[in-house]
Each structure stands twice: as structure tokens, then as C-alpha cells.
């Protein structure tokens, strides 16, 4: 049986662990609120962008020389997977879920005989996938020294993907990230970026009586060629924000659980400590009494 001193030491160490997890939980909660507000603020732009794309896409979709970003390269051989995860751990199953999802996708694609290229965003996803799929890596992006994810980062990433598309380095681009469903639930999911999935144009027309006949300046195709990269950036931006919000949500939950577990453990240890202490006292008493009797 552990000595009293050992028990005291363990109780103290679990207590300080609890303090740390409690603090981390509160920090995560505060950051979660900020991340959610940021995601909220980004929504109007995305909505309006979607509306504009819907009306524009309908005008161009049938034309044979529509931009590559819209219709893809026409092949389906080389897949680029952009895997978005967090920079840090201690967040429950958050990173593992995205990593596992990505791994399943890579295996499925390769089983079909496709070529897969992987671009990771966030250190955790890179370390998770590197051992098995290191040879498919074409890049690792990390924002661990970026304080607050802004549109800038998303734009940079979008530019990089666009350049790769122009160079014909892939045919299909898919984004894998943790969709933020609620504070306690993040779902690993995928979203096709290229060829772009255009929003359906069924909301705009009927409400305003006549279908809106837009004039375009410059032409439809030029406009679309400028709009699509923006749309790509905005989708990436949204994924990055959801990833950030989801990470803090997941971390909050994980730290809450850890705090509760530490509390339970302290209770158990304290009980054990008291029992041992009492047993020691009883033992000493017996020794004294039997000693006195022997005299």
C-alpha cells in the first residue's frame, strides 16, 4: 500500500493538473466566443457572393470556354486534398477525426487508381498523416505563429491552389475540415472546391417577377474569372474559421471532462488517504496497548 506521503504527493499533483485544465477550459471558452463572432461576421459576404455567382454562373455555365475553376480540367485523375486541422492538441478527438477522415479518403481514392496529393493546413494533421502518406505531401502550411486567422491567410492559400490549377497539377480539389455543428459537435467533412459547385439559381428569379437580366461590365466570362478565385478564397476562409471555432469548442469540452475526471480522482485519492491514515493510527494504538499489556 502506498504510504501517506506518496498519497499526499499524488493528490497535490492531480490538484494542480485540475487547475491547469480548468484554466485551459476558460481560455478556450473565451477564444471560442471570439472565433464564433468572427465566423458570424464573415457570413454576409459569403451569402452575397453566392447570390452573385448563382446569377452569373447560370449565364456562363453552358459556354464551352467557361473558366477552368468552374468546370475543372475535364479529367478526374489527380486529386488534391487540402486537410485542415488545428495547430495544437489537447482538444479531444478533434484532430484525429479529421485525420482519420482524410486517411479513409486517400485510401479510397488510391484504391480507385487515382493519384492523390496532400496539402495540410495545421501542424496536427501533418504529423498525423505524414508517416503513412508522406510521399503524397506537396506542402504543409502552419499558422502557429499567426495570432488571428484573417482573410489574408485564406487568400494566400487560394492563390497557391489557383496557381497549381493553372499549372495543371491536379484535376479535382477537395477540402477536408471539421465542420462546426455546435460547441460540442464537430463533424469531419469534405467539400469540393474545384470544379466549383455552384449554388443553384432558383431563389433569385421567381421572387422579383421577371428573371433579373443583368448587364455585365466587363463581360460575363471575365467577371466570372475574377469572381471564382474570390469564391475559392471565401470558402477556404470559412473552413479555416470553422476549424478554429471547432477546435476551441472541442478543446473546451475536452478540458471540461479532464477537470471533472481530476475532481473524481482527487475524491478517490482523498478517501484512500484518510483510510490509510486511520489504519495507521489504529495500528499504532494496537501496538501501544499490546505493549502496555505486556509490561
Amino acid at each position: 500500500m502506498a504510504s501517506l506521503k506518496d498519497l499526499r504527493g499524488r493528490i497535490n499533483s492531480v490538484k494542480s493538473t485540475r487547475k491547469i485544465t480548468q484554466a485551459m477550459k476558460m481560455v478556450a471558452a473565451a477564444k471560442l466566443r471570439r472565433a464564433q463572432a468572427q465566423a458570424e461576421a464573415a457570413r454576409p459576404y459569403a451569402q452575397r457572393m453566392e447570390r452573385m455567382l448563382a446569377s452569373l454562373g447560370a449565364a456562363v455555365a453552358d459556354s464551352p470556354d467557361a473558366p477552368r475553376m468552374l468546370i475543372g480540367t475535364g479529367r478526374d485523375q489527380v486529386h488534391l486534398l487540402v486537410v485542415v486541422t488545428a495547430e495544437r492538441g489537447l482538444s479531444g478527438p478533434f484532430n484525429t477525426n479529421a485525420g482519420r477522415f482524410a486517411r479513409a479518403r486517400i485510401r479510397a481514392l488510391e484504391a480507385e487508381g487515382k493519384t492523390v496529393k496532400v496539402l495540410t493546413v495545421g501542424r496536427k494533421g501533418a504529423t498525423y498523416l505524414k508517416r503513412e502518406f508522406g510521399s503524397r505531401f506537396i506542402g504543409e502550411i502552419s499558422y502557429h505563429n499567426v495570432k488571428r486567422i484573417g482573410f489574408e491567410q485564406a487568400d494566400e492559400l487560394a492563390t497557391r491552389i489557383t496557381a497549381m490549377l493553372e499549372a495543371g497539377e491536379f484535376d479535382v480539389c477537395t477540402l477536408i475540415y471539421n465542420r462546426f455543428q455546435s460547441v460540442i459537435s464537430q463533424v469531419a467533412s469534405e467539400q469540393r472546391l474545384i470544379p466549383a459547385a455552384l449554388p443553384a439559381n432558383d431563389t433569385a428569379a421567381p421572387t422579383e417577377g421577371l428573371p433579373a437580366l443583368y448587364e455585365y461590365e466587363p463581360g460575363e466570362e471575365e467577371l466570372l474569372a475574377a469572381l471564382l478565385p474570390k469564391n475559392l478564397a471565401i470558402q477556404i476562409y470559412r473552413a479555416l474559421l470553422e476549424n478554429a471555432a471547432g477546435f476551441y469548442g472541442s478543446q473546451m469540452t475536452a478540458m471540461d471532462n479532464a477537470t471533472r475526471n481530476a475532481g473524481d480522482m482527487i475524491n478517490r485519492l482523498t478517501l484512500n488517504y484518510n483510510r490509510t491514515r486511520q489504519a495507521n493510527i489504529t495500528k499504532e494504538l494496537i501496538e501501544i496497548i499490546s505493549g502496555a499489556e505486556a509490561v
Partner: protein
Amino acid sequence: MATFDLELVSPERLLLSRPVEMAVIPAVEGDMGVLPNHAPMIVALKGGVIRVTEGGRETERLFIMGGFAEITPTRVTVLADEATPVATLSRAAATQRVTEAEAALAAAANDAPEIREKAMDRVMAARAMQEAAQAA
């Protein structure tokens, strides 16, 4: 006077959403003033200043770094890449941007024409920002 709804959004937030009488927006093919009941249009924007008129007076001046605008008879939506009220523009930051953009253009001298064109656009936008900052 008749009004229409003007919305100005950047990727990071919604900057403006209210009824106005007139807005002058910097379209790529020249500035255009938009009044209520304008014909539906979608235009690309270059770097420049959006001027908003309400109650017969110019009430707001915002600098945007390019973007798009959707115009309908009752509503104008501006999707700006970046937007700042002219009053808060910093001359130093604008100058720095011009220098950076010019350097990028010089670096792109041997690239494909499209890339050069994009760099050129950025220089123009940065210069417009500098001008707006100086006027403010």
C-alpha cells in the same frame, strides 16, 4: 428623395447597410454614380473611393481595394476585397503599399502577361489608396 439600399461587405465584416440616395462606385471601366431604379448590373470594381450621398450631402467616403458590385433597381451590394473609411487611411501605410506593389510588378517583369496585369492592377489600386489618403 428616393433611396435604395446600399450594402458594403468585406470578407471580414459587414461595413454598411442602409438606405442612401446616391452612391458613386469605382467600376473598372470608370466611376459610376448609381441612383435608385438603376438597371440591373454586375460590375467589377477597381481600387478607389466609394462616395455615399444621403439627404443631399455626401456623408460617407470609403476606400476599397477592388471587388464587385451587384446593382438592382432597389439595392446595391458591394463586395469589397478590403474596405476602410477614408478618414482612417494612413498615408504611411498607403505609401508602403505602393512601394511593395511596384516592387512586385518589377519582379513580375518576365512573367506571363496575365500575372503582370494583376501586379499592375495592384499598383494602380495602391496608388489610388495613396491619393485618397492624401486628399483626406
